[in-house]
């Protein structure tokens, strides 16, 4: 598959595009972010601006901090006591690490797709409407409509419409990953975070997920951590390359893949190390 051409919305690596809420910052903006786990400096002074309504892929060798960075976006480090985070992280102009920021409200804005799909211990339909339910949506018909809509959006409706009440764990792993995406979409997020969301899937299922990302990127800001360079080449609009906890290079896919500025990036992309 050939490289994707650079997106037309901006040629600048960090466009100050207006995001949906009328705030003048990029959708996600990371400012001087540092993260320590015990005494290890995991993320080193990250500055990054992720534009909305596009796919941004974070690439880099194992252990470079990609996943750690992604998890800072929806504060999944909150539960771990030895993680210390400094710096600012703005989502829709709101500093999510501000002490007044409400964590459930921030997480509601983002859907997370984990490496392995993790369906909740309930039926298929209950999985999809779990989010809306905990956020106060009531009424059987309303919930059914949401489930139908979101399952349609991920192309799962036809496959499961006759067994909505059966356990979600009975689905294949590829179907479960789409179910998890539907579940994430059901809380009406603005951002979708994917942590190697296709790495546990077979090639066909992972292609389906990739196509899904492409088809919904005009509505959501999608940030993906990926191990496979080819996947990043296929779907990314913007690429961030990380190495040893530092953000080495960020730019449009065309720029990073075809004209990398940094020597490390060039080496990594040409397969010099992984």
């Amino acid at each position: 598959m050939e490289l994707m051409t650079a997106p037309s919305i901006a040629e600048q690596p960090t466009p100050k595009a207006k995001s949906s809420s009328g705030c003048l910052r990029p959708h996600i903006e990371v400012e001087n972010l540092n993260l320590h786990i015990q005494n290890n400096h995991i993320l080193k002074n990250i500055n990054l601006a992720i534009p909305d309504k596009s796919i941004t892929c974070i690439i880099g060798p194992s252990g470079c901090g990609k996943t750690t960075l992604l998890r800072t976006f929806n504060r999944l480090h909150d539960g771990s006591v030895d993680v210390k985070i400094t710096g600012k992280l703005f989502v829709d102009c709101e500093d999510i690490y501000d002490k007044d920021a409400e964590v459930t409200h921030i997480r509601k804005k983002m859907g997370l797709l984990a490496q392995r799909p993790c369906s909740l211990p309930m039926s298929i339909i209950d999985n999809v409407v779990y989010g809306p339910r905990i956020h106060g949506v009531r009424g059987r018909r309303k919930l059914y409509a949401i489930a139908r809509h979101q399952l349609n959006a991920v192309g799962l409706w036809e496959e499961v419409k006759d067994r909505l009440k059966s356990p979600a764990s009975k689905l294949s792993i590829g179907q479960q990953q789409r179910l998890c995406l539907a579940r994430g979409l059901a809380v009406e997020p603005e951002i979708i975070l994917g942590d190697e969301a296709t790495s546990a899937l077979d090639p066909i299922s992972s292609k389906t997920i990739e196509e899904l990302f492409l088809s919904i990127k005009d509505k959501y800001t999608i940030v993906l951590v990926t191990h496979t360079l080819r996947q990043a080449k296929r779907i990314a609009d913007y690429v961030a390359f990380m190495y040893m906890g530092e953000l080495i290079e960020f730019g449009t896919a065309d720029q990073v893949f075809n004209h990398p500025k940094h020597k490390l990036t060039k080496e990594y992309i040409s397969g010099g190390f992984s």
Partner: protein
Amino acid sequence: MKKLEEKIFKFLMIGSTVLILSVLLYILYVIMKKGLPSLSWDMISKIPSGGFYLGKEGGILNAIMGSLYLIFFSVIISLMVSVPVVMYLNFTLRRKSRLAAFARLTFDVLFGIPSIVYGAFGFTLMIYFGVQASLLGGIIAISLLIIPVMIRSIDEVAILIPNDLVEATKSLGATNYETIKVITRQLLPGISTAVLLSIGRGIGDAATVLFTAGYTDSIPTSLSQPTASLPLAIFFQLSSPVEEVQNRAYAAALVLTIIILTLSFAARYFSRRLSKNKI
């Protein structure tokens, strides 16, 4: 040589399985043989009357109801303690936390303490608070006995819960409380096994209730009244010189066995139904 080794081990494995099974079957056989003739409707529907312990009219309904009351309330109290403890150990503390390791060691030690010690401990507590032998005392002593059983067996299942499940619910904007509800769903089969084990240990134990619950011929109507229990009913009747009464002890043992078996099958059944949605 290898072949011989294999044969010996196969023989040992089959032999020990058969040995255990035959002991179990022999126990059941003895209880049935001696107990069944004395088991009558009167036995399970009446409380002891005047000369019951000399072989006259009456039954052991007081002990049956006493045991059921004791175990029912103890299980409820233990669940209310154990589930939060397990949640704290697994989902609030870090996996490798020292406090969690220490707590688990403590529960293992408590698990191994003989029941008579819990009985004695309950008894000193009761003296301290000025409570007489009563249903309440028995419930507290049995709860102490089964809480470690319950915590450890729920914990075994909770350890296996993937962190992904916690993160999946949290990333949908769930609060801690809502996350715990989802985890509890996943834990339900484990909880039902824990309840089953606790019932098995609690309902058949004589030593804990000996000092704490006392013994009486009537069915208790309040927490402060003493209560009879099946293990003690067996104990007292078996120590009687009258043969008729001794056989009644076996009938009581049969009743106890039937109660445990029924509860086991019920727990299995519900466990299977509850695990339908387990991931």
